[in-house]
């Protein structure tokens, strides 16, 4: 018994020593690598239930470093500027015919896989052959099988492709648009010997193209450790710069509570989606913890998508423009943003985020039109002073004025403007279409029957949108709308999004994702073929905003046949944005706010508001820019 007791105490001491010395003294990470050489990142997707699935031809090998460190792309995107640049390709594609369907692509010589084998067009051709041959069994290949008509090898470093339709966005269809690409290249010498088994091949650990290779991973899905290749200069982005960490550990540190505590203890370097409250608490205990911006709003507002209320315009009474506008004018976004986001949001009136990249292309171009816009009997709904008013409100809420932006920085921080909060005008608009308040104080349908708005919002799986949704519903209720804000799990959320018969109003982001002047990738879904009858139970394959406006559909169709750098193409995008806004087809709300707190104990020079060399997200492929830009502090 005494021996048992001693063993127990010894285990306890050994374990606690291994844990506490590793972190307290900063000597080693808990996976046995020198902490000073290891960048540790909270995983984007939490714990993985199938960490052995590392075959990119099936869906899952995306998170935990694959997209950022493992795979290689023909063209990558500079997320600071929104410009594409060649990564494994040797330059941009050469267009071979007038129809813009045939292209010649060259590969940069000298790239090797992590096992030393050269990367050649044989790998490209094999990947495409496999995608087409097993298109009914592999779940992550449809993006190329519907896009390409044919392809052929010219030599070891040159190949040609022909697309089904004229294509002006080849670099983002076979390369990266914003955060990733839907198709990845696989090593022929590993996959080909498998024959038909390729459809169920797990590929763990994988042979990779990036400068890092998988050193170890947890079969329980909590962590994955990447190690810098000795020959990293021959990797897919070996020409980008010197990757600084020798090891990169992606780990799920658990619940928000444990993450905040572990962050305070310097157990990891970059978090994702920690709540502003937890960040405040962690910052108060550890000065090395920093938010994205030093001034209000503290968090990153440069995501590629924006949040909006998507309205099913195919269903009455939302098919009436007056009703949609009434909803927008009854929504007190300032109050919603303060109560749900502590004022940390950037308003966006057009159906796309307002970022330093999109602002000059879409917002500046439409600003006067927004100011001049009239609805109803000549009412001007746009409030260009929204941000200034918000700043004044925040001051009255007790925010230290020294922390708030001033001058031009106000609009850079809080947006170029939004819609006025004017429930009286909303009431007039509704009255013009026969909708008036009943005895219960809520608006009723024109025939007098009760009108209950079904507003679908995410449950706990997206707490920001959940809070935002409840706050919006509250704002509408105050204005006299009877709203049922129904929170659903992510599975049901997608089903509601895709099914006309079940969709009324939904808070969403999937059709308001435009990162640069190339609006086609996302808005190309606004097509006649993606419109189904209002009562249809068949799932939609796009156009979840249910855009039916013929003018928008025509602009999209015309734009899809124009080169991306044609001024007419950009102009069409600007018109689409304005057309959707002026008919209030989507009540766009704000840029997606993302909290990316960092800990500068071991590493510095993370991307920040005043040092924006790349989007700060650890789960975008552009994280590679961070990996080559951060610097060790020398803390051991």
């Amino acid at each position, binding site marked *: 018994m005494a021996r048992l007791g001693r063993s127990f105490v010894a*285990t*306890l001491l*050994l*374990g*606690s020593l*291994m*844990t506490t010395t590793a972190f*307290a003294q900063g000597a080693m990470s*808990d996976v046995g690598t020198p902490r000073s050489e290891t960048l540790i990142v909270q995983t984007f997707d939490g*714990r993985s*239930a*199938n960490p052995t699935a590392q075959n990119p031809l*099936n*869906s899952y090998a995306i998170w935990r470093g694959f997209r950022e460190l493992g795979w290689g792309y023909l063209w990558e995107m500079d997320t600071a500027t929104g410009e594409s640049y060649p990564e494994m390709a040797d330059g941009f594609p050469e267009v071979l015919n007038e129809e813009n369907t045939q292209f010649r692509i060259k590969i940069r010589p000298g790239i090797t896989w992590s096992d030393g084998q050269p990367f050649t067009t044989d790998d490209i051709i094999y990947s495409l052959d496999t995608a087409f041959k097993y*298109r*009914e*069994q592999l*779940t992550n290949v*449809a*993006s190329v099988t*519907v*896009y390409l008509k044919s392809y052929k090898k010219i030599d070891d470093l040159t190949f040609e492709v022909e697309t089904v339709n004229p294509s002006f966005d080849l670099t983002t269809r076979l390369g990266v*648009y*914003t*955060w*990733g*690409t*839907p198709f990845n290249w696989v090593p022929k010498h590993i996959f080909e010997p498998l024959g038909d088994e390729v459809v169920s091949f797990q590929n763990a650990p994988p042979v990779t193209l990036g400068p890092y290779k998988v050193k*170890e*991973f947890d*079969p*329980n*899905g*909590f*962590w994955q450790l990447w190690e810098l290749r000795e020959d990293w200069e021959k990797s897919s982005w070996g020409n980008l710069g010197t990757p600084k960490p020798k090891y990169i550990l992606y*780990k*799920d540190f*658990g619940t928000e*509570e*444990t*993450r905040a*505590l572990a962050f305070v*203890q310097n157990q990891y370097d970059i978090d994702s989606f920690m709540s502003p409250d937890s960040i405040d608490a962690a910052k108060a205990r550890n000065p090395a913890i920093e938010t994205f911006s030093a001034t209000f709003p503290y968090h990153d507002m440069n995501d590629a998508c924006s949040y909006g209320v998507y309205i099913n315009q195919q269903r009455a009474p939302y098919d009436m423009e007056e009703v949609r506008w009434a909803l927008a004018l009854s929504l007190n976004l300032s109050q919603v943003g303060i109560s749900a986001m502590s004022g940390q949001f950037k308003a966006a009136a057009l159906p796309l985020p307002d970022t330093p990249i999109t602002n000059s292309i879409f917002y500046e171009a439409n600003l006067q039109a927004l100011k001049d816009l009239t609805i109803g009997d000549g009412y001007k709904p746009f409030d260009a002073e929204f941000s200034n008013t918000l700043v004044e409100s925040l001051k009255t809420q007790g925010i230290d004025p020294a922390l708030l932006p001033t001058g031009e920085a106000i609009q850079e921080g809080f947006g170029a403007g939004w819609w006025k909060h004017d429930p009286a005008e909303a009431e007039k608009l509704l009255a013009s279409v026969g909708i008036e308040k009943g005895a219960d104080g809520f608006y009723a349908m024109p025939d007098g029957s009760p009108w209950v708005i079904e507003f679908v919002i995410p449950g706990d*799986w997206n707490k920001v949108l959940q809070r935002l949704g409840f706050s919006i519903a509250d704002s509408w209720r105050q204005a006299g709308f009877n709203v049922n804000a129904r929170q659903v*799990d*992510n*599975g*049901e959320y*997608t*089903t509601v*999004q*895709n099914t006309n018969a*079940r969709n009324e109003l939904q808070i969403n982001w*999937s059709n308001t*994702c435009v990162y640069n002047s190339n609006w086609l*990738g996302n808005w*190309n*879904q606004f097509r006649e073929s993606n419109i189904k009858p209002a009562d249809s139970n068949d799932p939609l394959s*796009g*156009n979840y905003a249910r855009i039916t406006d013929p003018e928008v559909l025509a602009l999209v169709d015309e734009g899809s046949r124009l080169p991306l750098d044609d001024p007419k193409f950009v102009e069409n995008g600007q018109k689409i944005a304005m057309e959707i806004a002026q008919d209030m087809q989507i009540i766009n709300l704000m840029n997606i706010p993302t909290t990316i707190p960092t800990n500068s104990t071991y590493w510095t020079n993370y991307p920040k508001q005043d040092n924006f060399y790349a989007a700060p997200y650890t789960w975008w492929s552009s994280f590679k820019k961070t990996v080559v830009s951060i610097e060790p502090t020398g803390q051991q």
Partner: protein
Amino acid sequence: MGVLRYVAKRIGLYLAVLFIGLTITFMLPRLMPINPVDGYIGQLQSRANGTLTSEAIAEMRTNLEQLYGLNGNVFTQYVSYLKRVVVDFDFGPSFTYYPQPVSAMILNALPWTLGLLLTATFIAWVLGNMVGLVAGYFHKKRAASILEFLGILLYPIPYYILAITLLLLLAYIFPVFPLSPTFPVGQMTPEKLGMIFYNSLLPGITLVLAGFGWNILSMKALAVATTEEPYVTYARLKGASNWTRMMRYVFRNALLPQVTALALSLGMVFNGALLTEMIFSYPGIGLIMRTAATGGDYNVLYGAITLSIIAVATAGLVIDLIYPLLDPRIRHK
């Protein structure tokens, strides 16, 4: 003959429970307002940033319905499901993590769940019953009130609060245990086993404390009632010692409902401990089931619920079969 009839009747009931359970398991996920194909495509869309065209999505939808076996009417799917589960004991691939087989996912996670929860449940049961027995048998003494107070104190604390409190206390303020443990991988060595044991201690202690209170209160109530039984008074008058009366007269008679509770709680262990997994970053089946429920992953739900049904039904069967051994009254009936 009586024994054989008893056993046959219980086994018949067991099989009927399994059949009904499997049928309900098949129907339940289909009543959820979730389409697993849409869920999978939604994930892919999110990862590909909308560059998935409508044509690509349509092609994926057709292929996934085929791969998931969601074509055909519900009856055809039901027959195919029963054949697969009953004859082959194969739950097919996970929808959310296609093409990962459900059996592999469950087999990987189950040993962690069972190892922690079975051990913690059993320890909580033994300790709780011992403390409850002493508190009940000596219920007129002050020490017994203190023991009962312990039970009353622990039982109503919500598990989440208890877990967070212990985590804060023992991993942050006094960092004896890791906040977010890293379980070693690769070939097992004594040192790695030691680390697994050490990393499991904090969730284990929390589970024991959480289960401890109910066992104390329950056993104490039973022991108080049993102590007042005439046969215990008779034993005291006969000169039996306190220990003998407590263990042989009170404990044995108070034990039966507690054994039932233990068997049922062991069966429920198969449901996993989602909160434990989330709070302590502990591997197990809870998270897999949660993801399956929210994503409409029918096959994973079938696998996990079927195992749970088998576990609970088997626990019930085992109780039925061993009751006669524990309780002569049933044996003689």
